[in-house]
């Protein structure tokens, strides 16, 4: 734990007319962490992000930035890459970057200095006087990323960051984001494609139908949702392997190629991995062993199912 969270929401509600976008959402983002805001389309992720960016105000609830109630000036400490993103097509790259940087509160000299170093880093110095419409889509995406992070935000919010970006730029952004985190920035990833960010995240929150249904550290959630399912690869006789398991584990899948076998199994009755090894090592030669960690989308589906059975039960 690193003291006060950089951002905290307490019991936030937001309605658009009769439509509830957020209901009683509370969450805390730890400083220096990568936080995944996950959930299907229309769950309320973008509504929450717009509230953090003070684009819209919540109907009720409290918001804290760096331990203090969120103030208008805090937008200068936040960087935001919206899902619907773009730049003025008819404006020159350099002038446009200067404009957006100054809107984030940088002075002219600061903005110019920082822009020069980013342009050097991405080797795009020659673009300064080009219009965005003269650039390719991938080139414009680089510029877009630069203006998002130029003012060195303490909190960087990326909404669906890897959609629309080509693979090369997606990797570039991933690397730059990790670099920024190393320098102390906090990052919020928001996406409905959970598999794209889950290995990057330290903590996550799952949002479904305007409510937060689960949050916490990724490790803890995985521990909580582990299914005790493992995959083993070995050489040996599959029948004697199955006999050795007996009632300690259930065989879910098996594949055999000569004496090379791959199986998926689930531990039963309080047995541990050590118990399993003791049982099988005498009858086979183990090649690899791996726990099948539930993916966030598995966790999500299970949580939603649990909730709906609770609702109906």
């Amino acid at each position: 734990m690193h003291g006060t969270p950089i951002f905290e929401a307490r019991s936030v509600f937001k309605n658009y007319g009769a439509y509830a976008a957020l209901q009683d959402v509370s969450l805390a983002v730890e400083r220096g962490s990568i936080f995944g805001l996950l959930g299907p389309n229309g769950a309320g992720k973008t509504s929450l992000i717009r509230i953090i960016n003070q684009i819209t105000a919540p109907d009720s609830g409290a918001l804290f930035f760096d331990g203090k109630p969120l103030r208008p000036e805090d937008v200068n400490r936040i960087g935001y890459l919206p899902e619907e993103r773009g730049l003025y097509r008819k404006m020159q790259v350099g002038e446009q970057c200067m404009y957006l940087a100054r809107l984030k509160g940088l002075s002219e000299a600061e903005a110019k200095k920082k822009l020069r170093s980013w342009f050097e880093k991405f080797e795009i110095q020659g673009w300064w006087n080009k219009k965005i419409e003269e650039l390719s889509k991938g080139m414009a995406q680089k510029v877009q990323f630069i203006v998002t992070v130029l003012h060195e935000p303490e909190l960087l919010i990326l909404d669906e960051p890897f959609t629309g970006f080509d693979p090369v730029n997606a990797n570039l952004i991933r690397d730059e984001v990790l670099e920024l985190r190393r320098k102390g920035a906090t990052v919020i990833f928001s996406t409905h494609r959970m598999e794209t960010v889950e290995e990057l995240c330290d903590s996550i929150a799952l949002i479904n139908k305007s409510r937060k249904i689960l949050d916490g550290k990724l490790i803890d959630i995985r521990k909580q949702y582990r299914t005790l399912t493992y995959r083993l690869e070995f050489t040996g006789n599959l029948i004697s392997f199955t006999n050795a398991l007996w009632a300690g584990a259930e065989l879910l899948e098996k594949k055999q190629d000569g004496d090379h076998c791959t199986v998926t199994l689930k531990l039963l009755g309080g047995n541990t991995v050590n118990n399993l090894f003791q049982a099988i090592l005498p009858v086979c030669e183990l090649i690899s062993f791996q726990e099948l960690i539930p993916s966030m989308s598995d966790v999500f589906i299970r949580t939603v199912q649990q909730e709906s059975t609770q609702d109906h039960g």
Partner: protein
Amino acid sequence: MYSFALFNKKARKTMGKIGLIIRREYLTRVRKKSFIIMTILGPLIMGALMIVPVWMASVNVSVKTVQVLDEAGLVDGLLTPNDNIKFVYTRKSIEQAKKELEASDYFALVHIPRFEDNDLNHLQRQIKLYSVEQVSLSTKLFIRTQIEKQVERLKLQSQGVDQDLVDNVKKTVNVPLEIIPLDGKGKSDVEVNTILGMFGGILIYLFIFLFGAQVMRGVIEEKTNRIVEVIISSVKPFQLMMGKIIGIALVGLTQFLLWVVLTGSIYSIFMATVVKDKFSAQNVETILKQSPDGTSVDDIDQIKETQEVIGRVNSINWGLMIPAFLFYFLGGYLLYGALFAAIGGAVDSESDTQQFMLPVSAPLIFAFVMAQAVLNDPNGTMAKWLSIIPFTSPIIMMVRLPFGVHYTELLLSFAMLILGFVLTTWAAGKIYRTGILMYGKRPTWREMFRWLRY
């Protein structure tokens, strides 16, 4: 003291961001080629609009020959031709003359039948104009006037009055009917007021539409380029909207100012080179001195007219007209500009704007149409109401102002316009901030009203 300083700092920061937006909106537009071209072309187009019709009329060289068959001996040889219409006289029968008209390239045939019962009033109704082609109104009027003049001469003669005497008397009759308002604010000139009022109204109408549409297009551009959410993560949507509206207003004022300067310099160059010799004070004096013994009457008339025009222009209360124009331009523009911004925010592309444009611009068009009626009765009930309603007051007040408006009415109109644009800006801001984040569907009016409450 401390809180005051804090407020100042905060206000400066907010103003700083709006200032950046205003600057961008202003510079990107002023630097455009189209702005520079419009600035140069504007005065030229205005000049052309005034000169071309006059020129076209004078250039119309095809001379039409009108045959006259005068069986009564009413006009024989007495019709005066002009540059476009000549008269030839014939003695053939009417049937023959009609046939000839079809076969020849005569333009028309005037037939004055035999003078039978000695009744001029009866005869003048029998006069006909035969034509193969369409006869334009001006041609008809010209021929008619020519004939009427002869009828008049005959009628006068029958009463024993000499036509030359009448003509001379007519020349000396001239009652300008100067209007002196009782409040002692100097003379009032209906003609100049009408022209000035109409001109001011048209200018306001054009400016509001021209620059209001620019606001709308600017908002749509930000939406279609998907940059709007990037920007409103740095500034409030309302600041972005106001920055845009103010920036474009400054573009409009710049354009107007450049037009004034440009037209002014063209005018003074024209005056200094072409008109100077003819109408310099010294020259006028000499001509006027010479006049009894020699100078043509035309010259003196021209000089008198020119001096009169200059006098009329000077009699206009520019000290009121110019500030009032600026106020009504800005007020009307802010009122409509905000509504145009709201429309731009609500739609996805310019082709979707149609259904919203009409209801929003209807009051403006209505005011423009009503301007004519207001000119006829500048202080009537309708004129007064239309200058209180903020949606129509900018145009209507510009039309009325040259005729004099009581200051209480003016103040009420000012106040209502300010109130009006504060309200529309507030409502537009609400629609705008919701609309700019909506993609992919065209909202209905009902939805837009609902956004007011978000």
